[in-house]
């Protein structure tokens, strides 16, 4: 990405928020305003929606004037970001099946590799230490019933 984009991701974000503000105001209208002396459930969120839309509109104007030509993430950063986010999602999806110990081990190793922890010995040691810590803190000390998955 080079040069100055006229409409970047930050502008798109402000536009989406502007639309959300409009939707909030519209939906709130449907909840009913009541009267000023006896306000209904839609009155407050309607004004909040209008405030969001107005603030987003002016922010959008400002963003379009001063749009940053640099991308938020470079290629390596985008890769790290994608792996980290995917691992967070993996943790939630795999936990009921694999159980907390296996998921902790796998996730910690992937996190460590995503943030460029060199070799395999250190990631494995960090993963084992984290899994042990989670077991001692949550399972033994706090009696939290964490999913055990297929190991149950």
């Amino acid at each position: 990405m080079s040069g100055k984009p006229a409409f970047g991701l930050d502008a798109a974000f402000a536009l989406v928020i502007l639309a959300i503000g409009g939707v909030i105001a519209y939906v709130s209208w449907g909840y009913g305003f009541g009267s000023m002396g006896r306000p209904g459930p839609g009155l407050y969120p309607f004004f909040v929606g209008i405030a969001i839309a107005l603030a987003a509109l002016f922010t959008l104007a400002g963003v379009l004037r001063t749009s940053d030509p640099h991308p938020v993430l470079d290629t390596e950063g985008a890769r790290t970001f994608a792996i980290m986010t995917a691992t967070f999602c993996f943790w939630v999806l795999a936990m009921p099946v694999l159980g907390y110990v296996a998921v902790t081990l796998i996730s910690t190793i992937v996190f460590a590799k995503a943030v460029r922890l060199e070799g395999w010995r250190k990631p494995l040691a960090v993963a084992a230490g984290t899994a042990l810590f989670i077991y001692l803190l949550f399972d033994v000390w706090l009696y939290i019933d964490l999913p055990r998955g297929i190991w149950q």
Partner: protein
Amino acid sequence: MSGWELLLNGFANSFTTVNLVACFVGALIGTVVGVLPGLGPTATMALLLPFTIPYGATTGLIMMTGVWYGAMYGGSTTSVLINIPGEAASVVTCLDGYQMARKGRAGAALALVAIGSFAAGTLGLVGLQFLAPLLGQAALSFGPPEFLAFMLLAFVLLANLSAEAPLKGALMIALGLFLSAIGINPMDSYPRFTFGTEKLMLGIDFLPIAMGLFGISEILTIAVEKYVKPAVAKVRVRELYPSGDEMKRSVFPMLRGSVLGFFVGLLPGPSTVISTFVAYAVEKRLSRRPDEFGHGAVEGVVAPESANNSAVMGSMIPLLTLGIPFAAPSAIMLAGLRMHNVEPGPMMFTSNPDVFWTFIAAMYLGNLMLLVLNLPLVGAFAKIATIRPQILLPIISVICLVGIYSVRNAFFDVWVMIAAGVSGFFLRKWHYPIAPFIIGIVLGPTTENSLRQTLIMFKGDLALIVERPLATTLLTIAVAFIAYRVFVRVRGRSRLIAVEEGKGL
């Protein structure tokens, strides 16, 4: 019971093993978090909140404040030794602290920071101890119009003080207010924005949002950055003695920083950060040696560090007396107190006086613990600063995931946290302030209730608010502040145009 009797009672309550351990653990974790660049006190407080649930409101409050307070102490260590602020309130300390370290006075700088922080923390506590009950008494006369006006003033100040662009701050507050409106509205039991989903009936829980915005987004931000190993200045224990001249030069900056920090702490926004800049500017202006600032002036280290500790105590006043948090860490504290069914505010001094007084007593002890902890262990804390994020990030990531799941055993909360974390990452990159969003969520229900009660009270005629002097004064200040900002902006723009036209000629 008189104030002193209540305080003594508070000391008796705080001398329980669980409270002392909570105080020590909070202070220790806070110091470590302050030392580590990246993970700030707000994320840590959010992360620790679930662990305080089994131990009651007072213990939770003590631990949370210990973390916040400890972070103020720890943040300065890296500022002095490696020129990297451990957290935002220690940025100013880098200017002169690191220069002192380069001159071989790192030990003295750290000792003065610890003594200054201790003195300021104690003075701030004295202020809190005397002012909070008085203000709490005064706040009893607040009705819905006063609360509404106060809230509006807080939002105006918050939007202006938290962000480079006030509109972005205002947008974040409004988004927070909206998020708090999701779910069944307690005033008329009407479900709003639930889209028929049962999970949204009770609203979106605050904790996953806070953990995501402050924890996960920080993890993602650090993960994508390139790491450069810092060089740490060595400190020996025998070097921890400031010279007589350094001590003498520190006394008044310490006192001025403490008083100033306490009052700046009463303002909405990142008061601990603002207090350091204000204290530094004041000292530079008052100094007989202003040219020394930026080259290792003792005053430039002591005053900001005293101010940020005192500001923590100042910012507890609106939280404890009105139940209104003005900063992100106090918003987390409010959420924590609510988890224990304790609602801070004017009634707390009569309904739960033991919570307040035990908290005050424990903080006196915590302040002492931090002094003892920070002086001899400064070398150990400096070593922590060199632990690579490649080792810490995977551990913290998994603890965040398990921590938020363990609160309600709900995967939904984990999804909310991940979504908030990813959103928070981009919001930071695009310079949207996070704290106003969190404060908006926390204050949303009070704002709506105040608005609706005021409308009912005035039978829909909001103009009647002029009959309430306090509410009118607060609203006038808010309007005057907006007018001032618009005036400054318009004047700045017309000057810029004039300069450009001059260049054109």
